[in-house]
């Protein structure tokens, strides 16, 4: 049963990813991306990571993709549709990414998974996922967490500065 779900979700993710890349219309790309994110969230649920699944939907689908859509409004879609969508150097792109894919697939067998951490599935279920994540995040990763907030602040300031109209 689980395998069936995984098969559906994985297949959908791959197909939707390809659609994102190959769509002529940028708006369609973003919409396919949205669907892909939802399926990805499903996969997170399969892996007992319900908090991350929620974050995936809220942050990625809710915030980032909306941002993308706003920017796409700048483009002239109809004119864009008639133009060549790939660069002249596409064969190079294909070969490089295929090479990396093969290397990655080949290297995957080298992973060792026998070192188990303290958070078994039962332990996570006992404390609930959100609480377990919070415990690790706010104790062991307190400092990186604070730094992440700074990164976001800088991003806000930077984005505002870059995108504002130049006042002369």
């Amino acid at each position: 049963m689980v395998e069936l779900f995984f098969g559906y979700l994985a297949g959908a993710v791959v197909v939707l990813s390809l659609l994102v890349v190959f769509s002529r219309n940028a708006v369609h790309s973003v919409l396919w991306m949205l669907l892909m994110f939802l399926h990805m969230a499903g996969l997170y649920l399969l892996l007992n990571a319900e908090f991350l699944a929620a974050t995936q939907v809220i942050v990625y689908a809710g915030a980032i993709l909306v941002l993308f859509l706003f920017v796409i409004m700048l483009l002239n879609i109809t004119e864009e549709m008639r133009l060549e969508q790939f660069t002249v150097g596409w064969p190079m792109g294909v070969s490089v990414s295929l090479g990396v894919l093969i290397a990655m697939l080949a290297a995957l067998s080298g992973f060792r998974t026998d070192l188990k951490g303290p958070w078994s599935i039962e332990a996570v279920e006992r404390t609930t996922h959100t609480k377990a994540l919070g415990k690790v995040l706010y104790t062991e990763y307190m400092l990186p967490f604070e730094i992440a907030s700074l990164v976001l602040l800088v991003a806000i300031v930077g984005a505002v500065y870059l995108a504002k109209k130049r006042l002369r």
Partner: protein
Amino acid sequence: MQYYLLIPFLPLGAFFVNLLLGRRVVRGQAHWPSTLAVLGSLAVSVMVLLDVLEGRTLNEDLYRWILSGDFQVSVGFLIDQLTAVMLIVVTSVSFLVHVYSIGYMHGDPGYYRFYAYLSLFTFSMLMLVMANNFLQLYFGWEAVGLCSYLLIGFWYQKRSASDAGKKAFIVNRFGDFGFGLGVIMVFLTFGTLYYLPVFDNAGDLAARSINILGLEVNLITLIALLLFCGAVGKSAQIPLHVWLPDAMEGPTPVSALIHAATMVTAGVFMVARLNPLFSLSPAAMDVVALVGGVTALFAATIALVQNDIKRVIAYSTISQLGYMFMACGVGAFAAGIFHLYTHAYFKALLFLCAGSVMHAMGGEVDMQRMGGLRRYMPVTYVTMLIASLSISGLPGLAGFFSKDEILFRAYSAGGVGVVVWVLGTVSALLTAFYSFRLVFLTFHGGFRGTEEQRHHLHESPKVMTVPLMLLCAGAIAAGWVGIPPLLGGGGQFSEFLAPVLGHPEAEASHAEEWMTMGLSVLVAAGGVLLALLFYLRNPEIPVRLAERFRPLYSLLWNKYYVDELYDAVVVRPTIFVARNVIVGFTDGALIEGVVNGLPGLVGWLGARVRRIQDGLLQHYGAVMALGLFLIFAIALITLS
């Protein structure tokens, strides 16, 4: 006795104040830090002298400077009788020159710079005389050379001034090369650079000789002569005297301070300080005495015919320095230092008076255009007259006692001493003659300058005349500490320095002492009277003599053609080699080939490699992806 540290470091502090704040903050007030600092040094020097008079000397290291294997050098201070005398001489003359310069340099755009250099010079000279090891001596030696260069070329906009600065520096380099070699030889021989162990062990090595290019040379003689090379350069003795007359391009207070009273005496001080080394080598001592005697006569003859007021005094300085070496060479180190000490006052006075005259004449230096100035500047006239009497050796004045001491010691030493005694006595005649020629041409007779100059004639301001009067007191009374027993004095000066410089053995009767003294007074009086006859009574005589002995006159007028000789033998070949070999081949072909070739190669390579930077974002991304691929590939190969 730690307060002695204030002596060198007060002027150093003033130097930094003027250097850092001079241009913006102190400006026209630049004389305050420097003058106060040197006044402080003078006060401390007097305290040190009192300490030394009570028998307290000092030799200690302040700071370890270099430590490398056996080689150890510290910044250290040796304060004994000799140092105490030098401290008084340097700080007192320096202080008066500082005060005098307030008037003389007033309004100069480089005012703060001038005082900064003066302070640096005072610091350097004090470090030189207070050193307790050869390297610190060498440091002070080079530092005063540097200051000399800076101050001679002070008006660097003037071509002749900057040339004179370079000349002084380069000529000194010849001597310093020998001096440096001497210091190295001292280290190689004794394994240390401290004075005292070197002096203690020198006696054991007196007979040792080494082989240089197949020539057996006595080791101590070699070291002494190499060190003496430095003294020849710094104290402007033959054959390295050429820089000092040209150094008159600097401001006159500088001439008084550096090129008369203190820096040039560093050579004499060095020979006296190292007397245990020199005394061991009779050959080196004879060289010192002969160089001194010949220089004394040689410079005096040139001074006879020069018309530039400062150059006459400059040659007089060279001549008087010759006397000091004469004294050192016959073993009468105390007499040499005594003359150094008295000479500092009357020679500084002569220079400052000359400066006062030039100040009144609007920078004129040609004595043929002066005359009759005594009516306009009485203070300068009287002080200059006293200084000239002092240098000529009028009994009772400072110069008389020291010069007489030297001549007597030279005579009584016998051997080479008698030769230099003759040279010195003839020089004494010439000294009196040219000194009074200067006085008569400048201050007596009628005024020979332009109407405009006559209109401007005035006595110098108080800030300049007061130092003149103080120095005048020195020129009169400085010798009274060393009145010989023959004249009822105690000869205290020699006794005071005896612990450092030793007692010269005098093997002459009183009659002979009376004879040398009488003779020197006689020739001095003769010189003065001759000058009186030539330049006041009968001014045609010198003109006629010049006509009659045309070749001799032009030989003297052209300073024996030494400059021309050096120009032909040293300067021109050097420039030729520099231009054709160094610039043409080494620099032009070799170095520029490498220097231009390497960037050319890089540029050529860059022009080709640049194509990778095509500005296409995706190509950069592809390179990153390739890197990722390589990481995976390496992980695969190494981990599996």
